[in-house]
């Protein structure tokens, strides 16, 4: 079966897009009129989620660069000068 490695970059970009949506949702997930100990615990948990989201975002950005390098190597290596995706 023929697999096009350039789809891997598209996959990482899709993951980045989804992660952006998750971060947008987290940005507005404030407790607002909800107050008290439970709301404080919620705020702490939400901040931890935001940190996770930022780390995930950085790692996906890095993964995208790595996968792009992989794609370039595929397109120039092993007798495929035209590249897989052309």
């Amino acid at each position: 079966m023929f697999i096009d490695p350039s789809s891997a970059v598209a996959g990482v970009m899709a993951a980045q897009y989804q992660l952006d949506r998750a971060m947008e949702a987290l940005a507005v997930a404030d407790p607002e009129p909800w107050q008290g100990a439970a709301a404080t615990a919620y705020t702490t948990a939400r901040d931890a989620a935001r940190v996770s989201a930022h780390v995930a975002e950085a790692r996906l950005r890095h993964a995208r660069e790595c996968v792009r390098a992989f794609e370039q190597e595929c397109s120039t290596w092993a007798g495929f000068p035209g590249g897989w995706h052309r």
Partner: protein
Amino acid sequence: MRNRLDESGSTPTLVMYSGLTVVDLARLAELEGILDGALAAARGALRAAGTARLLVGGTCGLAPLTAPRALTSLDDAAGTTLDLEGHLEDLRCRVVAARAVYAEAENAATAVVARQASVVGRVGDLLLGTVLPASGAPRWATGLLGILFVGVNAAQDARRGVPGLVNVQEHLRAGARLLGPAVNPTGRVLLPRGWVPLAETTPVEFLSSSLLDLTGLDHFGGKVDVWVSEEGGVRHESSIRGGGVTAHVAVPIGAAVAIAPLRSVRDVLRRLRGTAAGADRSGVGRIELVAQRDAAGTTAWTVVLPGTREAFMAVNPQDHLSNIQLMGDERDDLLLAAKQALAMAPVSPGDPVVFVGHSQGGIAAAELAADPAVRARFGVAGVVSVGSPIGQVAIPETVPVISLENVDDVVPALDGLANPSAANRVTLQFDGGAHSAVLGPHDLWTYEAGYDRALAQDAVSLIEADSGLRAVANWSDPGATARVYTFEFARTDRVGSVLEAILHAGYGRR
């Protein structure tokens, strides 16, 4: 076995008026939706990263220099996205739990506020409790004025949006407290267990039994035939003429019909609808006993008791006379027939028995579960009352009870009492909303929708009680099989019962 009026401890365990608490719960529901969206997005990111990992892994031989680094970076990204998913799950759980707790607390508070007497009510109480008695006004004048105040107060409460259930509960109790002594000045009633003074009864109970005593209708009944309705028209009869459950005719196992096993309260509500329709078709009383056998061979019984089918003194004892007799703690034909059906069915000692009833059936269910004779013989394991006034029935604390009450439905308010607050009792009060408007507040479909909604809204107490009931009744066993015994019953000598009533009309005439 009745509860005495206890105004201090009458707060329902779980109250959910969805229409009256908006701000916090709506915001929390919105937050839950936002987190659901974030969770779905995080899962999407995880899937997309997984797909990329698969593609790179499948073609890594084509780029041996960069493939290992690409794979490692994708694994790292997937790992942190998985962490994010865990955090979001945790957040969502916190919001769901908080919403359930706030819903219980805030709505219970709303119910307490709604129960506070209005200004008219307070003036009325002052007049009736202090001014008029001190002025030497006759009892009838005090009663008449009191009823007038109760009526005005109820109308005023209805105008300011107090739910029908709370409004009727409060004012029926007040009205019965005034009317009872006016109807029965002796201050005591003659019940099957003997003379009972006013102070040891609830206002509605005293009024109901006084009216029955006065008219002799407490003696209407006791002549009922009970039989199993078997396919092919075969009847297995067992007379209980004379008012006592006599030696019974055991029902052959073959009289039962195999049915799909019960899985939930919803399934039993559906059987209640079918049983009620069957009673309407046949014109006689009908209840069902469902024997559900689990994979280990243990049988649990579910007794299905539909609501009122007839008007008054009908052939079918599921009528309004039975309602008044049940509320007055008097002997009645419905309970006699139900006990006889239990005696006839092949229930082994210790088999768990769960009683489920709608409206009148719910009162009968509670009375059966509270009856020491029934509990001595059968393993009473639970009660589900649907739109039934059972606040006056003292059900032992060993028996779990789920009571469903639509705040638009006045029928569960006819006891004039809130259900007692106890560890074994969960009372779900819900706002029937559109279902009430379209189908009617007392309809079984409305109750089914309210129950489903409460479960979906993570009403913790209800979910725990529901789960316990399903386990004890074998409803949660996926390998269970079920058979149903359909019992029919009819009053056989109504003319004789009327004569009995006439002969015994007047207070305290046995």
